[in-house]
């Protein structure tokens, strides 16, 4: 486990600001592995150390990039590359990341295959088979049936009512007049029945 050819003595002495910067990078990488639901602390520590070594070697050539950015780029790139190797399918980069993470989840990596995560080949056959068969589909193959609305066939009374309704919808003055007539009729009826 780990990269034994990187002894601690090779580290340059770091000042306080650099220590804080790498502390932040460490925390971010560690949190990402934690977000992937890795539970084994030894494994997480080892993976973080490996990523940070790579990031620190890049820091020599890219001194302006914050350590956190370098470390997380390394983390995401390593996961992406490893997933592509396991899946062995040509996906465009942007989709690969999601596809890889989905496959890890559906395979049950955090519970069953932690020890395989980010290791070089060969991987257990069951793990590879599970990864490659993991996908999501919102539905089966399309096999639609046409649905076309047929016009509502109304009888003579319904047609007349629809015509009136349409006229009242289009002409607010007519509508007002009809409403006024109906109200007047109702008032007259009430007066005639109850008060006359």
């Amino acid at each position, binding site marked *: 486990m780990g990269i034994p050819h990187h002894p601690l003595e090779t580290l340059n002495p770091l000042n306080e600001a650099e220590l804080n910067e790498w502390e*932040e990078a460490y925390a*971010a990488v*560690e*949190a*990402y592995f*934690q*977000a*992937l*639901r890795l539970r084994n602390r030894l494994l997480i520590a080892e993976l973080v150390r490996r990523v940070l070594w790579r990031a620190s070697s890049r820091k020599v050539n890219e001194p302006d990039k*914050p350590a*956190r950015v370098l470390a*997380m780029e390394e*983390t*995401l790139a390593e996961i992406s590359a490893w997933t592509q190797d396991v899946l062995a399918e040509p996906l*465009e980069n*942007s*989709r690969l*990341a*999601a*596809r*890889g*993470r*989905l496959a890890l*989840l*559906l395979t*049950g990596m*955090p*519970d069953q295959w932690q020890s395989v995560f980010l290791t070089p080949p060969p991987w257990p056959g069951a793990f590879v088979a599970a990864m490659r068969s993991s*996908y*999501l*589909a*919102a*539905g*089966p*193959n399309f*096999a*639609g*049936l*046409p*649905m*076309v*609305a*047929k*016009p*509502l*066939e*109304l*009888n003579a*009374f*319904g047609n007349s*009512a*629809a015509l009136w*309704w*349409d006229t*009242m*919808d289009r002409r607010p003055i007519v509508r007002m007049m009809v409403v006024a007539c109906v109200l007047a009729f109702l008032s007259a009826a009430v007066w*005639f*029945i*109850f008060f*006359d």
Partner: protein
Amino acid sequence: MEPLVPTPRDARRPFFGHFRRLVRRVVFFSSALLANLAACFWMGDLFWRMGFQREHFLLLAVFFVLNGLLVLGSFHALFGAFDILCARRRAVRITRLADGQTFALTQRFAIVMPVYNEDCVRVCARIEAIFLSIQATGQLAAFDFFILSDTRDLNLWVLEETAWTNLCRRLDAFGRIYYRRRKSNENRKAGNIGDFVRSWGGSYEGMLVLDADSLMDGADILKMARVMQLYPRLGILQTPPRLIHGASVFTRLQQFAMRLYGPLFLHGLNFWQLDGGSYWGHNALIRLQPFSECCELPALPGHEPFGGRILSHDFVEAALMVRAGWEVWLAWDIAGTYEEAPPTLIDHLKRDRRWCQGNLQHLWLIFARKLPFAARVQLFMGIMAYLACPIWFLFLLQSTWLAWDRRFSGLSNLTIPGNIGKWLHIDALTQSLILALAILVLLFLPKILALGGAILAPKVRRSFGGAFPLLAGVILETLVSMLLAPCVMVAHTVMVISIILGRSVGWDTQNRETDGTAWRDAVRFHALPTVLGLVWTAVAFRINPAFAAWMSPILLGLVLAIPVSVWTSRGRYGRALAARKILATPEELDPPEVIRLADAATAALDPALSATHEGRFGITAAVVDPYVNGVHVSLLEPARMSEPELDLAERCLSEGPHAMSDHDLTDLLYLAPAMLHMHRSVWLRPAESIHPLWTQAVESYRRRLEGSAS
């Protein structure tokens, strides 16, 4: 050895003969009409004896409609009781076709559950229970499940995706349970189902339509599918859902009443509707080919609320199927079919507001050509379910006016002999008491028949917890229903008036569970009936204390609307009643297997994939969490990100999702490259360059680590 698949019944041979169907309908409706005419004649004669006035014409007309509806309801129970007494083997039962059949289905069926801003964990629990229940029958291969989301809340969308993924992982059901979300929820539930039919309907013979709160037993689903396979004329097979999981007093009252009195009405309904049944929107199996050919709903003339898109689509779909020659049956004997009810009176009335508008739209369809008699009757009864209340209100107002008029007009109360008085030698008081008694009998006949039947049948009596809980439940249900009815009457009257005035209704999420109605909300909601009740009581006392006593069931219901609404909404009172087996149902006392499965279901919950963590909920999790993001992006269509879309993503990163409009946020959530870009950015970028919400979400993983270390 696998049982052979029987040959389907000859498509030209109906299950029930047309002549016998005609006889049943003539008997049912003519007897109801005769009973109503007799009551109206009796009432008219009473008016004559009192001195006929013009007001009496109107009152008699209103009485004809109201009493007609009452007679229709009671006769359903009466004919239902007759049907039950005829014994199960003689009652018309379409599922008889699948009795004793054990063959493997050769046709495929879809189980579809449209959801709209629902609790996705509970939705998935119901799917899980149905899945396991069908799996136990060994016929799972014939069924696919579809969660058809119309959810507009973006956080809930993410939660639905994670719940569904967990469900499929746990049940190993990828490729068996599907989830899809519509970007636009055009035409609401009917549009959602239509979209499914247009996308995948061709792969299946039928679809079992469920509601988000529906639950069905696997063996019953299989039986229904076998009936559909064996009977080619069958278009829709509707089951009568039983209410379950009632916690508040209000829901317990509803579920008890439906469970005890429901079978009588179902038998009565089946007595006359037969192959011209109705579809109630869920818990029904629908044949897809005819559904696609007949049931794309046309727009009604004019705009909403009376015109436009049809809101209550189910009745219309059944009517269109029957018009096209397909049979729609009620599978009254299917027991494993369940749903839940709104927990409070206020929630119930809010749902009624939507249904009211939908049913009033059906006025147009009464005038549609070539619609069969049964379909017109179903539509008419649906309309009258809501128009009955304003008519009842009008009747009560008129009665009060007549009493007022008689009190202050100085008219004599002496009566003259009428026809009935002469024939039967009874005075006017006796005549009026007989009429009142007859109406009371009609009102309470279903309850009396159901209670008597349940107490006399030992198995049924025990299933409700015994004779005492049954009796106590019926008395309590009757009393509370009497108190609730006037409040519902006023609410429905206001609904109908507001619809006539042109106010359309929205599409609210249903509240399926609650701790109860707050007093403030109850006062706000029931202020009108309370004030009306107080004024009406004062008027009634002014007329005559005897008249006030006569009106007291109505007046008490109005005056007490607020406390009754609050009291019936309380879960603690519901639990207290449940502890004494009062208002208990057989499903509550001895839950069937599928209900137990649903209650114990947890497959949708998994900490490995969760979007409900504090600090990274919903959308935040879809961006930050590697797995939630992976699931969300995997369900999106491949796309490329334009410059403006990149700017939008950057704005979301710097200002946070709360600063975005719903429209922009929806666009981002539908754009896979944007979601991937944001996921990468929140992890890569230093805290000062992104919104603190993202930083806190990232930090939340670290806190977990530190928390577990300590």
